[in-house]
């Protein structure tokens, strides 16, 4: 009779351990999924930031913005070809 109760207890413990393992695994998976979602959101946010900054840099670097400002503020002008001199670097600088 006592031997039978031991078996029941053993099965009960095995059942509880298995259940706990399943529960722990599921909890860890959900936690990982949440972290993954958070990371994805952060990455999307950073991507958005980067794209926005790149767009603003390109707009600021564009000729439509730079040329009028350079002309108005610094008195520069687009060089004519006679003002463009291609100077070969000395061979020692390589």
């Amino acid at each position: 009779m006592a031997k039978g109760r031991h078996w029941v207890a053993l099965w009960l413990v095995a059942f509880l351990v298995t259940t706990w393992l399943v529960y722990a695994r599921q909890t860890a998976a959900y936690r990982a999924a949440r972290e993954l979602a958070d990371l994805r959101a952060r990455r999307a946010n950073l991507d958005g930031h980067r794209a926005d900054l790149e767009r603003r840099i390109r707009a600021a670097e564009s000729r439509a913005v730079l040329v009028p400002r350079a002309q108005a503020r610094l008195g520069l002008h687009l060089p004519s070809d006679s003002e463009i001199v291609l100077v070969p670097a000395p061979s020692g600088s390589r």
Partner: protein
Amino acid sequence: MARPAVRIQVVEFGVLVGLALLVGRAAQVQILHGRRWAEEAQAQRTERIVLQARRGTLSDRHGTPLAVTQETYHVGIAPNELRDPTADGALLSRRLGLTARTWQQALRRRYAYFAGPYSALEVQPLRSVRGVHLESVLNRFYPDPAVARATIGRLGDDGLGASGLERTLDSLLAGRAGAAVVLKDRAGREYESPARVIAPPVPGLDVVLTLDAELQEIAQRALDDALRRMDADGGDVVMLDPGTGEVLALASRQRDGSARPSAFTDTFEPGSLAKIFAAAALLSLRRVSSTDRVSGEGGKWRVLGRTITDDDPQPSLTLADAIRVSSNIAIAKFAARLTPEEQYVTLRDFGFGAFTGIEFPAEATGRLRPPSEWTRPSAASLAMGYELSVTPIQVAMAYGALANDGLLLQPTLIREVRSAGAAGVRYRHRPEPVRRVVSREVAAALRDLLRGVVERGTGTEAALTNFPVAAKTGTARRVVNGRYAAGEYTASFAALFPADQPQLVLVVKIDNPHKGSYFAAQTAAPVTRSMLEQALAARTVALDRARLSTAAPRAAATPADDDGGMVPYVVPWPYQPDSAGVGPRRAVPDVAGFGMREAVRTLHRRGFRVALRGWGVAEHTWPAAGDSAAAGSMVTLFADPYAAARVRSRGPAPPPRGPRR
């Protein structure tokens, strides 16, 4: 009243029947209909979703993104879940740009949905707000929508390419959507489960276009300025590399501000631009010598019931004179030495009347009638560029053949196709010859004729002080509703820069200029000069400045200090002695995994200029490692702080190399 034993037996039988029914029903549910019930249960607690594939990036030849895919969001709001509707409402209205009325309407609904799409930046503060549900969706963005808009095209509502290169390259860019199963609760809310991805999405391939964003901007601005100044109906600019057939810039604009791709789709009569092709036939077939002269007829010549006139009458003209001053009379007289078949075949060989084969979804062939359909004046008309309709891209490729020593190439807009993440090059463009149109010697002779146009002829407005230019003007009457319209002209200009070993072919077309002169010499030629000057002064434009140095002897000989205090724009590049001529193309070294400093040094040692994109560890270059590029040309180096890990995963980084010459 039955005996107890009998009653017990009846009860036992009843229990047995009940159990049998139970077992039978269980077997029916589990075995016979098990699959259906399992699917139903699955459907109640899971949902299969489509994982969008990231569409590939379109970038210019230096890696500047022209079309990118970014994650955006639709926003759903459950008003009954909001903790503080007043405060949350203020935040939501501000971030989503909602009016007070819209927000009040949203509060009255059970679930309000705002499609947006909203950027990650816009929705970031909303992530922690209870009752706000974000649905991510990939969307296409064009960082600078004005750049090459018509060429790049757009996506349709179905997310597929609807026009332009987005349409042509759709199968490459689209990728393959994936699928995943997400868990959902009783209320239908989804829970993300990373273990339930059935098929991961396969991102589309990245495509590097041949376009040069800076040249494109130069072309667009020059065209816009010209159209505004001349009050013209529209215009086109095409720039391409004659050695490879790569289109570097394509600008089209109409009076109403629209930018349909008319460089591919709209035809025009080229007028005097086509005279050089009659000259090509005459020289190839040896029907004319350099000393042959024809009479200028005092500027007016009546032939076959038709009067041909010249704007700049000459007593007598050689073929060179005919091209230089763009004489209709002389070219018509010279062309009479050709048979219709010879004239037709030459024009056909230059690509007129046929598709160029460029990767654009809509391209016009133009019109070149076979000799059987010609009338008596057709030969003279074709020599002068009438009875022939062409597209600007066809003209550019035909002039490109002259620049390319007589070899006609197929034009292209695609430079490379890469796997996402720059892991590998799937396709790299190589020049694709169509046919040899004229011999190398004839091509050189034709370039000399075109050089005369800029030095002493109708194209002097395009002349540069230090660099020789070869070009041809064309001013043709416009056809409106099938008839030549009085006072309406198309001014066009085709140029090779520099005249020796050309690196750029430019075609400028101005439709119906109203203000000032309508002649190409005064309209399209100055626009060409302006664009060339800007291209020379630009840092990253795809010009081989080492080769240009040999083409600019006057610049080298004249010290800049002698020029009245003029401040020169100095462009350095690796030394290339003039005696060496055009240096051989060199292989771009593999610098993946190198530190930035070492990577730049390695590229400099190989004789390349370097443009940096990003920081950290070198990831890849454009042109890619192993590709050949001219010494002195620009190599774009892409770096990423996390590149080292990716490079390691692809294989060991190569040791730093010394210079190889």
